């Protein structure tokens, strides 16, 4: 996932730079949907039992697993709250996003 974050916005200066047919040539990873959030989930790793449920249910696939622990990628997290809701030990808190 990390190398995909290098994905950039694509701009065409001329039709000559465009493919002949409407098609994808880049990744949506350039679109940092973290900006959508009102609430931010924060995992308390001390209570986390590594059950995999938060990672499993994230609709944005933005809970990464690093060294066996869940890490939320806040560049993309939309703050839907599903991870907090489904966590069996309730170790994910919904914190109001401060901007």
């Amino acid at each position: 996932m990390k190398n995909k974050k290098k994905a950039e916005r694509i701009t065409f200066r001329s039709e000559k730079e465009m493919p002949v047919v409407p098609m994808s040539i880049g990744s949506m990873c350039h679109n940092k949907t973290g900006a959508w959030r009102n609430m931010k989930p924060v995992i308390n790793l001390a209570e986390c039992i590594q059950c995999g449920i938060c990672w499993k249910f994230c609709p944005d696939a933005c809970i990464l697993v690093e060294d066996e622990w869940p890490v939320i990628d806040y560049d993309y997290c939309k703050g839907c709250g599903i991870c907090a809701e489904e966590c069996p030990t309730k170790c994910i808190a919904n914190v109001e996003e401060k901007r």
Partner: protein
Amino acid sequence: MKKVIMGNHALSYGAMISRSQVIAAYPITPQTQVVELLSEMCASKALDAKFIKVESEHSAMAASIGAALAGARTFTATSSQGLALMHELLHWASGGRLPVVMGNINRAMAPGWSIWSDQNDSLSERDTGWMQFYCASNQEVLDTVIQAFKVSEALLIPSMVVLDAFSLSHTYEVVDLPDQAKVDEYLPPFKPRFRLTPSEPHAFGGLTSPEHYFEFRYKLQKDMEKAPAMIEETGREYEKMFGRFLGLVDPRRCDDAEILLVTSGTAGYTAHVAVEEMRQAGLKVGNLRMKVFRPFPFDKVREIAGRAKKIAVVDRNISYGHHGIFFQEIKSALYGLKDAPAVFGYIAGLGGRDITPSDFGGIVRHALANDRPEDNIVWIGVKR
């Protein structure tokens, strides 16, 4: 190899000799023989292709588009109501830059139910971005299918090969079936520029904002503008290998014609016969049979029709609220030409009513008798 076959079968043989790989088609009178023979050819392995027995024409075109996007050479055929049912997807094939080749049997649109020939079905689709080839003999049908694949695959624009209902689709004529090895040389396997493959995943046809859509459509038009020259060039190549040239138009006695008929489809061959008769009677008349309607062959029309004093365009179609469609387009092509001819418009043969040599005689006499057209539609043979 010479064979006596019907026009519909000329489409089937064309698709077979071109090594079509996927055929998705739904039967409709008078196209049924096209798909029946293709079905047999697939079953006997004379043609190595998948035949999808879709449940409607809309699905036929959808499946054809899917197959073409997967990288397969794709052929289908339909007529009138079926073509109309495909309408949404005709835009999809052209906008998707897919070289589908389709046979269309010109059949009048219902209501009332008609199975006989007129051109409103195919001409209603003239804005969809498909090339359109109007044929008048079974040999022409076969040769056109092969050449259509070549041009379509080079330009990534789909093609429609059009036949009149019954007078061409069901008429038996001697056809020279080209040698398969030579056709393979002329038309190598389809090499797609893009396709659905997990090894290089792309999303095709997604949401396209005003920021980009215009340029994609600009590209389609620009490639369509290359088509007249490419049709001639591939036609000359075909002539070298197979001895027959098709090209954009079929002019008969046009060089010194004072009155020029402009026709298409089988009526075009009837007009050739009528022209020879009238020449015998001393009239300086000629016939420009239009073979390619899209891309519109502006240069040929201006060069040939521009020389005549009067043009008599005979349409087997009408755009309601306007005039015959070839009439409109010929007239617009000649606009601005110095000493442009007077253009007369005639509508004949809607719903399959026969157009006879004597109809052409009457048309020419009418054009001779009038300096300029009084009405832009002269109805031939309507009981009033």
